[in-house]
């Protein structure tokens, strides 16, 4: 694919200092009958992990699809890597997505392809030579500790395994932005912890900018209070009750932003709704 070969390997290297990776500017969207998001403005700096919290149905997934250009806002402006989505042509949006990895709420693996082809999907599309593809797929699957499932089909995997394959598929091209939609949703606590470990590892090893939706508060706080230790190759609690400085929060309710700030600001908030929600 000629278009893919001409795009730079990183979308963020040439960005001027301080340009947000994701910026929403007074964005609103509604479906036929009702408004889902109203006047949403926030930005995500380079290297930041932005955790999006909120009750079910408040528009978190919708927000994430907007960020990847999968939906168009009714009003407002969304910029990714410093470029306005509305000013890009269809082809440019597809080229922009080459730098974005997305993990869907229900994994959204291709049923007709096995794990190897699912993970390799993007490499096949970019016409990467066959011999390199296999090695990179094994590497990505090793990251999510799922090498043994390489020749299985999605229907043969458990929910947690699907989620991990989905993460492998999203990170294989080393994207500059990762969007995780409820990566732990519907999973048992142990599998959830495994997935959160992967997110922390990706955050601290590759310092990729990311957006992460969750409705499990303990997952959010694990992310804020833990870091990846490369010497022991495991997730460790940050000592002295310190917090990861790059992890920030966005809380939505009924289509509005009710909180935008750091972990400490969130835990010290006096907003009654927020306090009740965090209980």
């Amino acid at each position, binding site marked *: *694919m*000629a278009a*893919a070969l001409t795009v730079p390997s990183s979308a963020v290297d040439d960005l001027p200092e301080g340009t947000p990776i994701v910026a929403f500017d007074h964005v609103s969207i509604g479906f036929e009958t009702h408004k889902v998001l109203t006047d949403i403005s926030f930005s995500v700096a380079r290297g930041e992990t932005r955790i999006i919290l909120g009750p079910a149905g408040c528009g978190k997934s919708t927000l994430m699809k907007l960020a*990847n250009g999968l939906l168009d806002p009714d009003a407002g402006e969304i910029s990714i890597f410093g470029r306005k989505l509305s000013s890009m042509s269809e082809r440019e949006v597809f080229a922009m997505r080459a730098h974005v990895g997305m993990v869907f*709420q229900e994994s*959204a693996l*291709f*049923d007709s392809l096995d794990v190897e082809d699912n993970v390799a999907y993007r490499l096949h*599309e970019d016409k990467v030579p066959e011999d390199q593809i296999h090695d990179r797929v094994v590497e990505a699957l090793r990251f999510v500790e799922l090498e043994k499932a390489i020749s299985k089909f999605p229907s043969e995997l458990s929910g947690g395994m699907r989620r991990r394959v989905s993460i492998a598929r999203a990170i294989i091209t080393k994207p500059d932005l990762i969007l995780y939609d409820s990566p732990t949703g519907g999973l048992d606590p142990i599998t959830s912890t495994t997935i959160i470990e992967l997110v922390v590892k990706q955050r601290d090893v590759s310092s990729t900018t990311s957006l992460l939706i969750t409705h499990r508060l303990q997952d959010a706080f694990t992310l804020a209070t833990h870091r990846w230790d490369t010497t022991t190759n495991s997730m460790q609690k940050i000592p002295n009750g310190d917090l990861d400085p790059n992890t920030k929060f966005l809380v939505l309710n009924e289509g509005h932003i009710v909180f935008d700030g750091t972990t400490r600001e969130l835990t010290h908030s006096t907003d009654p709704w927020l306090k009740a929600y965090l209980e």
Partner: protein
Amino acid sequence: MSLFSPEAYAKSVVASVQEYSLLAGRAVGDLFSRPRYIADTFTQMDSIGVGSLPIVVLTGFFTGCVLALQAAVSLKEFGAVNMTGRLVALSMVKELGPVLTGLMVSGRNASGMASELGSMKVSEQIDAMRALGTDPIRKLVAPRIVATVFMLFFLTIISDACGTGGGALIAVTLLHLNGPAFFHTAYMSLVYGDVIEGLTKPLFSGFIIASIGCYYGLTTTGGTRGVGRATTQAVVVSSVLIILCDFLVTQFMIGIFGR
């Protein structure tokens, strides 16, 4: 349940037609630029063409048989039973071969496409494909349109041949007509215009089947129930459109060839 509003209904129909036209137009436009998904096109050709072969052969064959039986009864009254071959061949090539093959393939493949793409839609695989940088219209719709148009053309020829063969078999075994004479009258009756007419129809039907099947698949909403609804609608709408289109092409061809 809200009251039926003719205005809202008319608006939704117009919106669907517009959405469908955009989809079909973009799919055709995608054929003229890279990337093209050749491997997917061959996979579809295999599933549409080879997969539909048995039903097309069987329906073609038995339609020819029935035509021969029915034609002989009527023609006998005029003492023209020798014209059976002519009637079978003309009906098969101009009308029944193209239409029945179109309807059969529509039942099998428009539904298949709507349910496959519909399941992909409701399980977010279509969004995932876009998120991975692939245009689903290019990857899913365009190959299906090419494959269906191409394969339906040849399936129609096979159906015509099986129908004429079935008619001949009945004519010889049950009606005790002369086999070579059957084929001779059949062959002599067909002119250039008839063949062109019979082979133009599947081009339109193929396009209708694939584009309608994909349209209903890609616009599926409402979970697995929605997939069932999309499948049914795809078959109903494509079947009606195939017959409507058959009428229009026939009318047009009569205008050109005078028969």
